[in-house]
């Protein structure tokens, strides 16, 4: 039984709450480390059976995932660390991974290694071997390596590294059983690895390390990795310095019950390290890395046999040339995206209708009757059924089908490896606006859902560019806004031309709005780079992984679970109270009119200046939680104020009409013009993100300031655009 370890603030894995998470205590703690995109998450899923989303995209597991598995009565807790190339703590990911390995003290560390990129992966393995002895290497993607003509000999590799090496094809579950067996034997102490450690640095480095190591051992005699800690101190690793100052290091050596460190001794160690640093070459860090890679190269040379000219590598290259070629790259990309969007819109139509038939046309009246039958007072019935239930039902029926189509399609492209190529092709445009090429991906994701797009910005590893991607994501016209665009375009723009052209014109208008959004995204990225987020585009290294045959069924399942349902759940949580508010403002009366009528009355002058009207503005205020309910709210309010209850479903009850023509008639009766329609399309593109997205932005940035910017910036742009369009329009119309 493992005892609870002391002080590890960034990784409280052994705390009591973790034990509860696992449904009880665990016997062994296993860490899962590795480079990005090595199939680490797949190994994790294969071991635990948990469905964590995996993608052919470097940098997926940004937060830590945890799971358990039981083998012959022994309980294992598995922690999936973020994928990193190194453990120098240069980024948040590396810090999380390193801290866990050092202070979390796992019983076994499984390093997942991509057999196709052995050298680069060995760099990380060698760094991990410096920290901990109990390492098992899982040599994953053996099939892919074979296809690409790279034959790795696990026995030789194991001999070189001094730790067990298990070959595996995690996607197909091959080698997982053996992996568990080896992990078990290492955890029980039946198998004791004797890891290889890089011992040959330059004399001046070795002198400094030896001196510092002596001091460390004198202060903490039980320290098992004093040499590594000495090296990190010479490389000025802040976290290690902190660990020394705060006594965490003492706990490491003695297994949790060390006497507190003498602060004077700690200070002396740090001062000695500071002095020794001046004796080293300025490119000390470069030399350390060169040393590690020298060894990685040597070991890979022993364990790897390359068979040149394999078919898969050739196929990969040909496909790459095609997809990134000057003439075909962009048309192919646009083609793929068009197909994705078309499938989403066309495919979602019928299921959306079916859901609406059931949830709104059938279940809503039924619920209402049921509530009346049990004697619920009318106002409560209205609030709960007409307000809360209806808003939620609306969001689900409009949002679920397109997301359930869009996300799996997107995930399939991701799994296949196409998305990094999109970023690769588009990077030049993003570079010029001071943004990151991967923003292309988060932008596309935003077309599905802005909240999901904001989460996806995690793959961008430089903070400035990530913030730009987060703030500008709202300019991607999301699924929830398409219906508004299509409806407005059909009613107001389609009607301007002969019937046989109406479809083309309205579709073109919607595409135009989406492209306008992309233009705003670029312009805003550029403007932010010039002002608030000043700076030029920083480092950019994009790994283009080999293409992998996508796994259709698994993708469907996982993307449904972890993108669609999570986003939907959040939207519902926000939509339910909005429903209550909408019902209340339509029914609560002040004086001789409802709250809604007063609000519209006050907002009308503002709306007029903006080329909109009070109804639209009020609808956007109360429908902040979800863009999906804007149109139903607009219709309900229009009817409420026009005093034509025979059309609608009653005060506070959102509704939609079967045909665009009927909606058009209603709106025109409410005083809508072509200008109102056009400006509503513009405002629907350019306004604050929905509250789900705002909440997500806050969670991702942890900053009220940037959340406020992300909210105010598009809103300000939208108000200004609508205002300008309205004035110019009126001027032109005389």
């Amino acid at each position, binding site marked *: 039984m493992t005892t609870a370890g002391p002080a590890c603030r960034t990784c409280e894995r052994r705390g009591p709450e973790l034990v509860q998470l696992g449904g009880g205590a665990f016997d062994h703690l296993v860490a899962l480390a590795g480079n990005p995109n090595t199939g680490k998450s797949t190994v994790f899923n294969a071991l635990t059976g948990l469905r964590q989303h995996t993608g052919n995209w470097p940098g997926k597991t940004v937060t830590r995932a945890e799971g358990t598995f039981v083998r012959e009565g022994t309980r294992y807790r598995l922690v999936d660390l973020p994928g990193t190339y190194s453990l120098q703590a240069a980024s948040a990911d590396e810090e999380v991974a390193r801290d866990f390995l050092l202070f979390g003290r796992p019983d076994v560390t499984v390093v997942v290694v991509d057999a196709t990129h*052995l050298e680069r992966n060995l760099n990380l393995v060698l760094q991990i071997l410096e920290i901990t002895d109990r390492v098992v290497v899982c040599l994953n993607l053996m099939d892919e390596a074979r296809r690409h003509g790279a034959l790795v000999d696990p026995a030789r590799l194991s001999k070189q590294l001094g730790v067990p090496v298990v070959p595996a094809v995690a996607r197909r579950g091959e080698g997982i059983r053996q992996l568990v067996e080896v992990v078990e034997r290492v955890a029980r102490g039946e198998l004791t690895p004797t890891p290889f450690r890089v011992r040959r640095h330059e004399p001046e480095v070795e002198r400094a390390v030896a001196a510092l190591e002596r001091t460390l051992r004198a202060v903490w005699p039980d320290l098992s990795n004093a040499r590594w800690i000495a090296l990190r101190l010479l490389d000025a690793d802040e976290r290690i310095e902190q660990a020394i100052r705060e006594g965490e290091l003492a706990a490491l050596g003695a297994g949790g019950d060390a006497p507190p460190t003498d602060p004077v001794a700690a200070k002396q160690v740090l001062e000695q390290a500071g002095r020794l640093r001046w004796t080293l070459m300025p490119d000390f860090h470069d030399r350390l890395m060169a040393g590690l890679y020298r060894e*990685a190269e040597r070991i890979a040379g022993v364990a790897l046999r390359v068979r040149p000219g394999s078919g898969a590598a050739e196929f990969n290259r040909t496909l790459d040339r095609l997809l990134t070629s000057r003439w075909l790259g962009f048309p192919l990309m646009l083609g793929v995206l068009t197909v994705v969007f078309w499938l989403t819109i066309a495919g979602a139509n019928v299921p959306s209708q079916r859901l609406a038939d059931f949830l709104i046309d059938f279940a809503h009246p039924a619920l209402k009757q049921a509530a009346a039958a049990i004697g619920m007072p009318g106002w409560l019935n209205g609030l709960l059924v007409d307000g809360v239930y209806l808003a939620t039902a609306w969001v689900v029926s409009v949002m679920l089908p397109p997301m359930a189509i869009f996300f799996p399609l997107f995930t399939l492209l991701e799994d296949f490896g196409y998305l990094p190529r999109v970023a690769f092709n588009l990077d030049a445009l993003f570079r010029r606006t001071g943004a990151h090429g991967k923003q292309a991906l988060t932008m596309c994701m935003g077309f599905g859902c802005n909240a999901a797009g904001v989460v996806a910005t995690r793959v961008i590893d430089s903070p400035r560019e990530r913030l730009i991607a987060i703030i500008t994501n709202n300019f991607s016209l999301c699924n929830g806004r398409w219906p508004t665009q299509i409806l407005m375009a059909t009613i107001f723009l389609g009607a301007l031309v002969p019937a046989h052209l109406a479809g083309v014109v309205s579709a073109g208008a919607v595409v135009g709005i989406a492209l306008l959004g992309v233009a705003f995204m670029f312009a805003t990225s550029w403007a932010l780079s010039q002002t608030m987020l000043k700076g030029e585009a920083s480092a950019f*290294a994009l790994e283009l992984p080999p293409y992998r045959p996508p796994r259709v069924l698994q993708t469907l399942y996982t993307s449904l679970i972890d993108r669609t349902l999570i986003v939907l759940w959040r939207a519902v949580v926000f939509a339910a109270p909005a429903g209550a508010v909408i019902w209340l403002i339509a029914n609560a009366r002040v004086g001789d009119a409802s709250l809604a009528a007063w609000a519209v009355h006050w907002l009308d002058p503002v709306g007029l200046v903006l080329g909109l009207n009070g109804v639209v503005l009020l609808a956007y205020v109360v429908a902040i939680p979800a863009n999906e309910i804007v149109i139903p709210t607009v219709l309900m309010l229009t009817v409420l104020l026009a005093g034509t209850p025979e059309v609608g479903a009653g005060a506070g009850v959102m509704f939609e009409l079967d045909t665009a023509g009927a909606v058009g008639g209603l709106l025109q009766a409410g005083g809508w013009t072509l200008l109102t329609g056009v400006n509503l399309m513009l405002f629907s593109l350019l306004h604050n993100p929905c509250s789900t997205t705002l909440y997500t932005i806050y969670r991702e940035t942890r900053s009220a300031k940037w959340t406020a910017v992300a909210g105010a910036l598009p809103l300000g742009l939208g108000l200004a655009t609508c205002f300008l369009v309205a004035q*110019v329009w009126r001027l032109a119309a005389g």
Partner: protein
Amino acid sequence: MGPGTALIAFVIALVVVATVAWPRRGVWPRLRQVWRLSERVRLEDALKHLSLGEHEQVPRSIESLAGVLGVSRSRAVDLLGRLEQMGLVRSGAAGIELTDDGRRYALRIIRTHRLWERYLADETSLAPAEWHDAAEVREHSLSESEVERLAARMGHPLYDPHGDPIPTAAGELPPLRGVPLTALEPGQRGTVVHVEDEPPAVFAQLVAVGFTPLARVEVLERSDSAVRVRVDGQEGTVAPVVAAQVTLDPLPEAAMDEDAGATMADLAPGESAIVVRISSHCQGRQRRRLLDLGLVPGTLVRAELDSALHDPVGYRIRGALIALRRRQAEVIHVRRADGAT
């Protein structure tokens, strides 16, 4: 209100906002600039000037102080008087000198300034010409604990991006080393240890030629009016008076060799090369990223995939296909691999 009036009102509002808030030229940024030049800032700048004089063993006078601070001579005398009252400066036999307290105070300001420049160079993408001014502002506003946190986070850097040593928290400053560029004969080579960052016009010229600390320089030709140099493979010419602002560590003849001047960005698709080193221009997080990818000296790289707009380019590095932007590929010096194209 008619649409025409509304539009005019909007344009006026826009102009007003722009005049107030425009970066650097607007009213608000200018007000901040004036406010920044408060008494304390002037005093701190004076201390810094005196301290740097001590370190570089250049005597300081009232004239030099007035010149650096951009104030009249009488105002400079005034400031010195205030510093004397505060016990930070005394007028001794050798002219104006710092007291121990004054020295400590000044070194803290210098430490903050240089650390902040290092931070701007490594962690942000601000252009080199803007580092100094930004640091001039920050050095007066960062608290001591903020400075220490920053230093720790950046791994206690030893030098600022111009090659000036950063004083330690204990107030130690290592001695300067090296010789001015003008001391080198044609054919001699050296590593840049320091590039003087004032006055800004001179610094900009030096940056344009490619002088940064750790850059390798070879003097090609010298005359009374010009020095022709090769800096990290790139040729340039500077006036001797400008060249004197660069300090070098001369290199033994044998140490230089390898620079054919090619970088990864020069590789045509399909060409291979061996990495010689990462240019000294690339520091901090960006350098670490490149090293982590395995771009250490001796690594075989191959330009493999051109993107639709020719930038970035995909390189085969240790088996993986990695896309790098042109600007990054340009900092990686390579030697074309013989026959391995």
